[in-house]
C-alpha cells in the first residue's frame, strides 16, 4: 500500500488533488482512498489530505501517520510547527515541495526531495489569481512523475473530467509540472 499526505492552505486544492489522484488510480484498476483531515478547511489555514493506493481493496479507515510521501503545496508550511509536515515520514520516503528553489536547499534526512514551481505554472495557466493561485493540478503532475503510482494519461483524464472549470488549462498545468519537476 502506498500512502501520501498532502499539505496545503485552504483554497489551494490539496483535498481535491488527493481526490483526483484517487480517481486516476482507480481508473487504472487499482484501489484508492482519499480523505481530508476533517473540519479545518478554512481559506489560508493549514489543511492536509490523505491518499492511499493499493493493488488490493483498502479496508483500513484511519488517518495516515507514516506516509511514504509528503507533498507540500505551500513552502511557508515548512515553518509552521502545527502543520507538522515532516511528521512520521517513512525512512527513504519522498518529499515534493512547491518552490522555485532546487531540492538541495531542503534537508529531510534520508528522504528524497523534489521541487516544482507549481505557483508559477498555475499563474501562467490562469488558475486562481496571482495572490491565490490554485496549484493542485501542477502538484498532481509532479506527483505522477516522481512516484509513478498513476500514469500521466490517467491523471490527465481525471483532471480533465473532474475540473469544475478551465479544463484545458488544468491539463496543461499537469503536463508542465510533469516535465519541469526538479530532482528526478
Amino acid at each position, binding site marked *: 500500500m502506498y500512502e501520501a499526505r498532502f499539505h496545503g492552505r485552504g483554497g489551494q486544492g490539496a483535498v481535491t488533488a*488527493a*481526490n483526483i489522484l*484517487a*480517481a486516476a488510480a*482507480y481508473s487504472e484498476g487499482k*484501489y*484508492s*482512498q*482519499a*480523505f*481530508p483531515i*476533517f*473540519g479545518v478547511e478554512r481559506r489560508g489555514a493549514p489543511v492536509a489530505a490523505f491518499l492511499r493506493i493499493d493493488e488490493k481493496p*483498502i*479496508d*483500513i*479507515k*484511519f*488517518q495516515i*501517520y507514516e506516509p511514504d510521501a509528503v507533498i507540500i503545496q505551500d513552502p511557508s508550511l515548512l515553518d509552521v510547527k502545527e502543520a507538522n509536515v515532516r511528521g512520521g515520514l517513512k525512512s527513504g520516503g519522498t518529499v515534493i515541495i512547491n518552490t522555485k528553489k532546487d531540492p538541495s536547499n531542503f534537508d529531510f534526512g534520508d528522504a528524497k526531495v523534489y521541487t516544482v514551481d507549481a505557483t508559477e505554472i498555475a499563474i501562467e495557466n490562469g488558475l486562481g489569481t496571482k495572490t491565490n493561485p490554485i496549484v493542485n493540478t501542477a502538484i498532481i503532475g509532479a506527483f505522477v512523475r516522481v512516484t509513478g503510482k498513476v500514469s500521466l494519461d490517467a491523471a490527465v483524464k481525471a483532471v480533465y473530467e473532474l475540473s469544475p472549470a478551465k479544463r484545458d488549462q488544468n491539463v496543461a498545468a499537469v503536463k508542465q509540472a510533469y516535465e519541469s519537476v526538479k530532482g528526478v
Partner: protein
Amino acid sequence: MGVKQVVKGNFATAVAAKLARVDVVPAYPITPSTLFPEQISQYIANGEMDAELLLTESEHSAMSAAIGASAAGARVATATASQGLKLMSEMLFIASGMRLPIVAAIGNRALSAPINIWCDHSDTMAERDSGWMQFYAENNQAALDLMLMAFKIAEDHRVLLPAMVGLDAFVLTHTMEGVDVPLQEEVDEFLPQYKPLYTLDVKNPMTFGSFGTPAHYMEFKYQQWEAMNNARKVIDEVFKEFEEKFGRKYEQVSEYRTDDADIIFITMGSVSGTARAAVDRLREKGIKVGAAKIVVFRPFPHERIREIAKKAKVLAILDRAVSFGMSGPVFADISGSLINEEKRPMLLDFIIGLGGRDITFRDFDEMTEISMKTLEAGKVEEPVHWINLRKELLEGGA
C-alpha cells in the same frame, strides 16, 4: 455490471435515492450530510431526477413533510445527522407508528455539548427505540447498497417500517473510494415502484396517526413489534436477492476468522475494515482473534449473536456511543441477547472513537491486551473500558 466511480459516501446515498426513483426529498442541511440534498438538487436541476426537493425550515419540518408525502404514497428519502436527527426525533416515532417506509441516510456524528462535527454513533443509538430499522455501512459501496435495499425491506407489506442507513461522518461521508454504481435498469428490476398498503386518498378517506386510547394503543405497538420481527426474514430475503442480482453479499452480521477465535471483536460501521486488518496483524503474532460486523442493529440480530458467541471465550464489543450510567448500547443489547444462554463468553465493552477520535491498530492492541488479561483471569473484573483516553487531560477531576 454498473459504473465504477470514485465517490464520497454522501454521493453514494444520493445516487441510491436517484436510482430508487425517490419521489420526494424533504431535507434540511447539516454537516456532514449536506452533500446529500446538494447532490439531489443538482440531479433535479440537470433533469436526471424527477423528484420534489422540499427545503424545509428545520429537520423537524423535514421529517413532518416526509411523513405527509409517504402517507400520500410517495417514495421518500432524506438525510441528516447529529443534532438534526435529534430535532427530528419527535417525528421519527410518528413515522414508525404510522408505518411509513421512509428511508433516511444518517451521517453518524457526535452530539453536543461540547459541539463536535466528527464521527460517532450517539445520534442513531439514541434513536434505537424509535421503531426505525437501523443499518450501518462499512464503506461507500455498502452505503449505496444498503440504501437501495432499505427501500425494498421498508416497503415490504410484512414490514412497513421506516429505515435509517448510518454512514460514519467524514470517514465515509467525505471520503472518496471506489464504488460500483448499479445501472438504472438493474435497480428498476430489483426495486419496483412503491405500492402502499394504505394511502391518503380523497376518494377513499382514511385516518392516519389517529388517537389511540388505552383500549387500542397496545395493539398498535404490538403490530410494530411484529413488523420489526418480520423484518428479520425480509432482510435475509432482500440481501439474498441483492446478492443474486448485483453479486455483492450482505449479512445481518458478517464474520471474519472467527472459527477458532478466543477473542472476537464486535464492530459496526467504518471501523469494521480496520478490525479485519487488525485481526490479520494479531493472528500473525499467534493471537487467536476474529471479528464480527453488525450490519443490522434494528431489528437486533439475536440469533446470529448467539451463534457467534458460541465460538468465543471473550466478546470484545466496540461501542461508538455511551449510555451514561449503564454501558455502551451495543454491549447492553448483546448482553440481553445472551442472558438466557446456558454457556456464554465473557463480555467486555470498549467505549471508543467518540467525537471522531481516530481508531487505529494501537487501539486494537490495547483492547486485545485487556481481553487477554480477562481470558487469563477467567473472569471480568471491570466490563466497561474507555480506549485511548487522554488521561493527562483528566487530572484535576470532574
